[in-house]
């Protein structure tokens, strides 16, 4: 600074300055201070751990219905079955634990598909522009206005029928995979829109122009300048989307259109809804599991939004 003026003063009055950290490190620091975001992260980590470790630690095999043979189906929570048993005598806690990996598979799978399609479509539309852009965006709008849920039900059912008697039928969890695929197919428009908006914005950004001036190639500009800037909103949309996909699959299963062979929270609800009065825990537990998961992802997304855009929280 002004070494020639009052050197002693500067050293005492100004605190030692660290070199400014990169944008990602800064965002992480901001995120850490956001209480809601940290709670969300905690919940998500909890679910992930349950999915990974849970199956090894679950008290019972999820398909163990020996309780029914003992006449202990629909039993209230006890020392033997911490969260009770359900209509078929399954241990609710174990099934809930096994539901976690299914849920995460659904969420991540759907959002992976959605992201791949969305980033590709949005990027192309934003970068190339013109007619391609118009056409792609109309396509995106189509997918957004169509009544997604209703159509998914129809397609799952119809696809299930078409597949009967064909070779496809023997693929395990085909039904679940169909659901994941459909969820992904209906989730890409939002991502595409966002990617396109970011590309448009950044394409004309001054720093991109500057990069071009010094001779950076188009590919370098794309990968080193534009994509990293478009990443934060993508992460937020993905976080929200995972929660949404898990919820959607739960709803589809709850209505009976899910995969009966997979263990999912929605399936648990479907099986046990009739016995709601008798064994409410069998429905409340999977319901609560879905709630915690969705809440976790929503809070995480919220925290990330704040961390990436430090507006003055006046």
């Amino acid at each position, binding site marked *: 600074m002004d070494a020639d003026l009052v050197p002693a003063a500067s050293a005492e009055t100004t605190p030692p300055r660290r070199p400014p950290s990169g944008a990602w490190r800064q965002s992480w620091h901001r995120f850490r201070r956001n209480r*809601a975001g940290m709670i969300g992260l905690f919940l998500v980590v909890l679910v992930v751990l349950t999915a990974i470790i849970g199956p090894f630690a679950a008290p019972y095999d999820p398909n163990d219905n020996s309780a029914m043979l003992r006449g202990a189906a629909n039993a209230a929570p006890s020392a033997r079955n911490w969260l009770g048993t359900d209509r078929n005598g399954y241990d609710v806690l174990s099934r809930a634990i096994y539901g976690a990996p299914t849920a995460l598979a659904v969420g991540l799978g759907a959002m992976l598909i959605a992201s791949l399609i969305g980033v590709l479509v949005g990027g192309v539309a934003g970068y190339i522009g013109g007619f391609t852009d118009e056409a792609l965006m*109309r396509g995106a*709008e*189509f997918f957004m*206005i*169509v*009544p*997604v*849920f*209703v*159509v998914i*039900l*129809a*397609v799952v*059912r*119809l696809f299930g*029928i*078409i597949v009967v008697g064909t070779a496809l039928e023997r693929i395990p969890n085909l039904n679940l995979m169909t659901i994941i695929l459909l969820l992904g197919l209906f989730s890409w428009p939002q991502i595409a829109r966002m990617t396109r908006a970011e590309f448009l914005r950044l394409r004309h950004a001054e720093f991109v122009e500057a990069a071009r001036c010094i001779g950076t190639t188009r590919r370098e500009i794309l990968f080193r300048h534009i994509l990293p800037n478009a990443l934060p909103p993508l992460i937020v949309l993905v976080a929200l989307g995972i*929660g949404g996909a898990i*919820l959607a699959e*739960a*709803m589809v299963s*709850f*209505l*009976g*259109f899910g995969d009966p062979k997979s263990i999912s929270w929605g399936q648990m*609800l479907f099986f046990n809804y009739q016995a*709601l*009065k008798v064994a*409410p825990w069998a*429905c*409340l537990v999977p*319901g*609560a599991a*879905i*709630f915690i998961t*969705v*809440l976790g992802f*929503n*809070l995480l997304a*919220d925290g990330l939004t704040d961390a990436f855009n430090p507006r003055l929280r*006046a």
Partner: protein
Amino acid sequence: MGALRFILRRLAFSVALILGVSFILFALINAIGNPIQILLAETPGVSEDMIAALSKFYGVDGNFIDRYLSWLWAVVRFDFGTSIVYNQPVGDLLWVYGLETFKIQLPAILLSTLVATAAGVIAAMRQHGWADFSIVSSAMLGHSLPGFLVGILLILIFSYWLGILPSYGAYSTRNLLMGSVVVDGLWHMVLPVAMLTVFNTATLTLLMRSSLVDVLRQDYITAAWASGLPARRVVLHHALRNAFIPQLTYLGTLFGLMLGTAPVTETVFTWPGLGALYIAAIQQLDYPVIMGETMIITVMLVLATLLTDIAYVAIDPRIRLA
């Protein structure tokens, strides 16, 4: 003039969209093959001729394009065909069941908008205070709660535990409450409407608050304060009007979401609405109903989007005069 052209373009796009959806659905259903065939294939005593005759009656014979076009032509004249399962005109079914669905969805949207606006205003005005914190926290929770869980909890608490509200159906099967259809109907509506309202209110509150916070930061609001206008006027007349504009799009989306997840809502409460009809139709391959109902729902969603676009133009002079 620019606004009119904008609306016409949206209209044209909407029509194209509806046609597209109908075509895709028709194609999918066509891929299954003849539903009559599937339903009756194993039934003893049913001859090929009977199947052929029924197929003709229900319009499921003939080649794909012919069938699609004749179906389309009928639909344009509001003839959706006859339900294979119920043996009634699909249009009648849609009307009856549709009314039940709107009976719970419209009050839910109205109630949510009112409550969310009030909550959003309070939260934005008392930002960072205790009221803001509790409103935002409750809204975050309500927004993440799955609808069916809310419904289940409501049933557990109010029907099973307290026993004061019914848990299924639109009307009591015997002994209407207070002997009146209207009162009995309203009594049955309470829980389903409550379930729908929770999510809507929560989401709208969060959006309204954030929108209002942004608007309140603007210079023209400071200018309004500086002109000595009272708080009521600044917030309601200046801020809220501006903050509400982005909510309009969301209301359209919300309506679509509610309608789209009607199957879930109506399954939880065994409510005889479009959702329940749809599930039954899919499971029993009642394809006229499937087609008809998907079309109607799509049309309603498209209309909702169109209406919000029109509302945008009407409210924001910047768009209107562009």
